[in-house]
């Protein structure tokens, strides 16, 4: 019995000495939130936010490369690589190769892959979206400025099918973020349309120009789609020309004359003395 006890103790002791490796188990499993953005009809992006649970908190995974593919993971369908930033977000502007690969297609499947890292397991995620068109129609009827946004699904023959019940927002670009002018929660009708009246009291730039935006955000079917258009519908803004007058807070070219005179006089006087002294050193070398 004592012999068994000794062997058991020895096994436990040796077991404590053996370093325990949990290579695979130690690694964190990141979570990827994948989204697709279509800006106007020009640029499209893929955006991924990578997070992991560290100390029971969702923590962004920074500085890791993510690979992006179209339809399937293969060399031919590779779209590019993007690295996550300090917020764990990686963004890829879809390259020309995507447009070549997607010719004639209206259903797009994108795959993103985070390959095996020192601290993270390999993980992938995919998203499937359909080709869409979001159009803005700006008209004036009975003295009212009407903004109409229309959302269509595009099929393989390029035919447009109106999308009903989509939560499209109409906004106006402002310096610190767009201002919504349509009702919150409003959805498109059977024609795929949603309209609102542009307010009369919204300032534009000095010519009255405003930028109107239609936006569909995080739709399961189409991703995020956005389009915008400029129009002279706003009030003409009167700019405060305080910054153009000579003052302490103006641009460098509009510094107060008194300050310019004072500072430059000091610089000229001091550097005048410096150059005089340098000239005197030159004179020392000339005396034989």
């Amino acid at each position: 019995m004592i012999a068994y006890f000794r062997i058991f103790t020895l096994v436990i002791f040796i077991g404590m000495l053996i370093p325990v490796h949990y290579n695979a188990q130690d690694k964190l499993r990141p979570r990827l939130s994948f989204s697709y953005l279509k800006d106007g009809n020009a640029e499209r992006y893929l955006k991924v936010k990578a997070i992991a649970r560290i100390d029971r908190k969702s923590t962004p995974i920074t500085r890791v490369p993510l690979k992006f593919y179209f339809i399937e993971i293969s060399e031919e369908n590779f779209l590019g690589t993007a690295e996550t930033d300090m917020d764990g977000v990686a963004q890829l502007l879809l390259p020309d190769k995507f447009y070549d690969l997607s010719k004639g297609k209206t259903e797009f499947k994108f795959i993103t892959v985070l390959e095996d890292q020192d601290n993270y397991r390999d993980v992938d995620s995919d998203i499937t979206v359909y080709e869409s068109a979001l159009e803005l129609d700006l008209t004036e009827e009975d003295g009212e400025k009407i903004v109409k946004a229309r959302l269509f699904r595009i099929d393989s023959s390029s035919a447009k099918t109106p999308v009903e019940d989509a939560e499209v927002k109409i906004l106006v670009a402002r310096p610190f973020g767009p201002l919504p002018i349509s009702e919150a929660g409003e959805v498109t009708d059977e024609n795929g349309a949603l309209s609102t009246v542009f307010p009369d009291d919204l300032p534009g730039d000095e010519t009255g120009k405003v930028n109107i935006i239609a936006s569909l955000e995080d739709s399961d079917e189409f991703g995020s789609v956005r389009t915008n258009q400029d129009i002279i519908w706003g009030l003409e803004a009167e700019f405060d020309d305080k910054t153009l007058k000579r003052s302490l807070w103006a641009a460098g070219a509009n510094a107060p004359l008194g300050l310019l005179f004072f500072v430059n006089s000091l610089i000229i006087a001091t550097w005048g003395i410096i150059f005089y002294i340098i000239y005197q050193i030159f004179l020392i070398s000339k005396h034989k």
Partner: protein
Amino acid sequence: MRSYQPDFYFLSKPMEKIESDLLQHIPHWRKRDKVWVAFLTVVIFIGIYAYYRQLRYGLVVTAMRDFTSWGIYISNFVFFVAISLVGSLVSSILRLSKAKWSIILSRISEIIALASIICASIIIIVDMGRPDRFLNVFIYGRIQSPIIWDVIIIATYFVISYLLLYISLIPDLALCRDKLHNVPKWQKAMYRILAVNWKGNAQQYKIIHRVTAILSLSVIPVAFAIHTVTSWLFSTTWRPGWDSTNLGPYFVSGALMAGAAVLIVGMYFIRNSLDLKEYISEKLFDNMGKLLVLLSLVYLYFNINEYLGPSFKMVGVEGEHITELFYGSYAWLYWLVQIFGLILPIVVLVFAKMRKPFPLLIVSVLVIIGAWLKRFLIVIPSLQHPYLPIQDVDDSYRHYYPTWEEWAITFASFAGVLLIITLLIRLIPVIPIWELKEEKEQKNIES
């Protein structure tokens, strides 16, 4: 028998002996000199590696965040600018007040001033997130900005500090050129070029005296301006602890005190390592000790002015800032600085025995440490109490613990100052020989 002041007993020696004493260290690099230079070089290279990491990954490698956007780089910059004022203190203020003993210390102080202002200029570029855009400061700078005033005044003071050292060095460089034969060729060529054909004739001496007088006068406003403008970087920014009309003289008086302490440390080590005990006499230490007491008293006066008003009113964020300094997380540092870096020197140095070289060295080291930490206390706690609260921020924004990269760069800047000082004192006489010669001739005429 001529009678010399206690500071100038060595003038009773023949001039040839004085010259030989003051030039003897130049051709001989001892092993310990080489080890010291190698050590400083290693520290600098570690700092360069840390700076490479900062350039590669950005300022994110530092602990500076949205609250504390100025860290130890800026406190170090303010410290070096402060130290650089020692050149004008000795070579100008003491010289103009006819304190003849300052002649012996003028070159050491000018060397310290030049080394400090060089490293202050470098450290401010290190603090920039995009140093490649440094020239834009000159191209697009706004003359209304105190930062531009600081750039202008630092550049000006840098040139004046160099001229102050160089002008008074010309006759001694000529002496090196003529008397030092066992130095390397490049060193001989350097003496020949920098001595600008000095022959020691009457016209050349006349120019030197005129130029030295002009420089001595013009360096004072520039020296006061450099540290006043540095203080304006703070006082024109609306932050608790900086919103003070007292900040200019507070900075200048603190700078003169710190500069005097650095000079005493420099005197001590130069005196021992170059075997100049006769020249840098105990009387000089006594004089510098008294001067340090005077400067500490002036600084104490401005300290009281700086803290009494806000601590009496304890208004809003300003009150929070004062509470943090007096009783909060910075209290131990604050009282350490005030007691050991300011009060103790005043009390201790009143006694003549404490103005002997070694005790004075210890007190001066305390003053220097206190001066560096004081700049830290001026910069960091104020930034952590912004008037506009920044909400829902990461916890790291609320504290500031410098990263190893910041410490490595800071230590490298100290090593840089020490390396410049070491190289200069190994290449040139540390006491102006030609001025001693004039002093000796003057005494001969008087007698």
